[in-house]
């Protein structure tokens, strides 16, 4: 028999009100925790994938689209750039490392990326099984691709034209799986890596077969080869100002910074997140009000209980604490339930998510979530403060001598 037991027994007695209040708190906290988890995870993913990339050079167009397509592999590329110009940039003294990318095909939704060995250095990749690609048409799979597609070393498959969908299959050449990468926890888990030559080969063949009437144009494209984008790492941070300007002004290509563009993207999403955040705060406010009203109303009836407890020797501060404790107990349970709901909801969202590039999970926790628990406790204390103060006003003698 202690304060906890007295409070919980009383809460159980008024279980409908208690459940309503717990649910209100849980919803508020649940929404907040989903927002918090999702935005932290997205932020981490964005940062993680663009960690070592200072600049992306690609065809003119939307800089955000360029970043999304060549760093996060979400959107379509802005177009192609002449390989000749790209290689010239790669030799620029300000560039420490430049990784060429040739996009265009996919295998059941996973992008086939033509690149060279500098890509593995940029992302710090290592092999789990087999080896890297060496010759044309050899591929190395990201760990996630291997798991979900069921492809094994030695298997071969046909790529499909475009970045999604499998309508237009390149049946002439099959890719052969040479190796599988270790899980990296970034975008490379969802990519199929090969050399640029393979991508050229696929498209040479396709074009001569299907578009004979534009043979002259195609021949031109083959002669001065093209790539999709160039991922660049600077030698020194000084280049941040000079190099993009040089690219944008003196070449027919555009340069975009992943850091700047993802910050811009995040500020766009931010409006929606803010709205939801206020909505959650509003629900928490309603929860606080509901707890306040139910405690305050219950005080009319509990006045007798509390007077009896006074009569049995309990001091005013002890009873004040008892009432406060009840409110705090409700919000504490609500907060824990809310965190549980939040994590479960995010996990479910993650399972039904179509894009594997930015998968969310509810199975991680952040130390900052402790703050949500504190906020919950604070709201509980705030809502029960005024009802608890009634303790100091109760006249025991008058209350107990009067008939109920």
């Amino acid at each position, binding site marked *: 028999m202690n304060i906890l037991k007295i409070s919980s027994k009383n809460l159980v007695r008024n279980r409908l009100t208690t459940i309503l209040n717990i649910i209100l708190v849980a919803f508020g906290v649940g929404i907040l925790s989903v927002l918090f988890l999702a935005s932290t995870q997205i932020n981490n993913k964005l940062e993680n994938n663009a960690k070592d990339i200072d600049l992306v050079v690609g065809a003119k167009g939307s800089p955000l689209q360029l970043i999304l397509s060549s760093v996060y592999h979400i959107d379509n590329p802005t177009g192609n750039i002449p390989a000749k110009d790209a290689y010239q940039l790669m030799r620029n003294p300000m560039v420490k490392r430049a990784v060429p990318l040739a996009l265009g095909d996919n295998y059941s939704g996973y992008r086939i990326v033509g690149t060279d060995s500098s890509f593995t250095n940029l992302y710090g990749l290592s092999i789990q099984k087999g080896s890297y690609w060496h010759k044309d048409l050899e591929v190395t799979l990201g760990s996630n691709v291997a798991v979900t597609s069921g492809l094994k070393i030695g298997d071969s498959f046909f790529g499909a034209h475009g970045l999604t969908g499998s309508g237009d299959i390149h049946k002439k050449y099959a890719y052969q799986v040479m190796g599988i990468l270790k899980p990296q926890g970034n975008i490379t888990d969802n990519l199929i890596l090969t050399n640029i030559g393979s991508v050229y080969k696929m498209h040479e063949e396709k074009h001569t077969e299907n578009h004979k009437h534009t043979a002259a144009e195609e021949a031109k494209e083959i002669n001065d080869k093209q790539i999709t984008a160039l991922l660049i790492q600077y030698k020194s941070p000084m280049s941040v100002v000079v190099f993009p300007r040089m690219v944008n002004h003196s070449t027919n290509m555009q340069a975009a910074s992943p850091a700047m563009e993802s910050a811009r993207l995040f500020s766009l999403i931010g409006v929606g997140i803010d709205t939801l955040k206020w909505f959650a705060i509003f629900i928490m406010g309603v929860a606080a009000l509901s707890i306040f009203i139910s405690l305050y109303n219950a005080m009319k009836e509990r006045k007798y209980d509390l007077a*009896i407890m006074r*009569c*049995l020797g309990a001091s005013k501060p002890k009873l004040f604490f008892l009432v406060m404790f009840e409110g705090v107990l409700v919000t504490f349970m609500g907060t824990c339930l809310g965190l549980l709901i939040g994590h479960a909801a995010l996990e479910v969202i993650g399972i039904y998510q179509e894009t594997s590039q930015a998968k969310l999970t509810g199975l991680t926790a952040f130390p900052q979530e402790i703050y949500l628990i504190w906020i919950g406790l604070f709201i509980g204390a705030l809502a029960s403060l005024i009802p608890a103060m009634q303790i100091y006003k109760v006249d025991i003698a008058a209350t107990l001598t009067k008939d109920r």
Partner: protein
Amino acid sequence: MIRVNSLAHVYDKGRRLKFPCWEIGDMEQWLLLGASGSGKSTLLNIISGLLKPSQGAVLINGTDLYNLPVRGLDRFRGRHIGIIFQRPHLIRSLDVLDNLELAAVMAGLPIDHERNRSLLADLGIGDLAKNYPDQLSQGQLQRVSVARALVNKPDLLIADEPTSSLDDENANQVIKMLTTQAKDNGAALIIATHDARVRDHLTKTYLL
């Protein structure tokens, strides 16, 4: 030994009550008689430390109640005075046994499970220990409140109109119970009543 000295109380509305001096020896049993409105409840509230009188003092075994700090008075009441109200006033969210334990906890005393059980058995409600107050009859509730008043082995047992809502048989039993339990537990007893059925059971009377 309980002593009441030149007590007077003035209510906010201006009504003034004066009480003659009163000395109650250890384990003595008294009737407090008076017409309704004569101040019986007021006097009981003052003696039990629930209502500070405008004037005068209440001494229980040498402790001047209204000289104690507020917290000290609450604690003293919990440990030394058992009060039985006209209505049983049990905590409805707790079962009978928990209601008894509450009395010990609120007074800051350790819980004596054996004593609680035997108190209930003595009062003939041993098998109701796990029932909730709203499952009990008026007579049973009144017994529980007697048991609760006795939990902390008080020096003084105060009952305010304990029989007013009971039938003859139950009233008789409650009075017998109060007198024997007070004797068995070594407590002095004050019963305030205007109920004629009670008068035959006690000899000492204090008339208002």
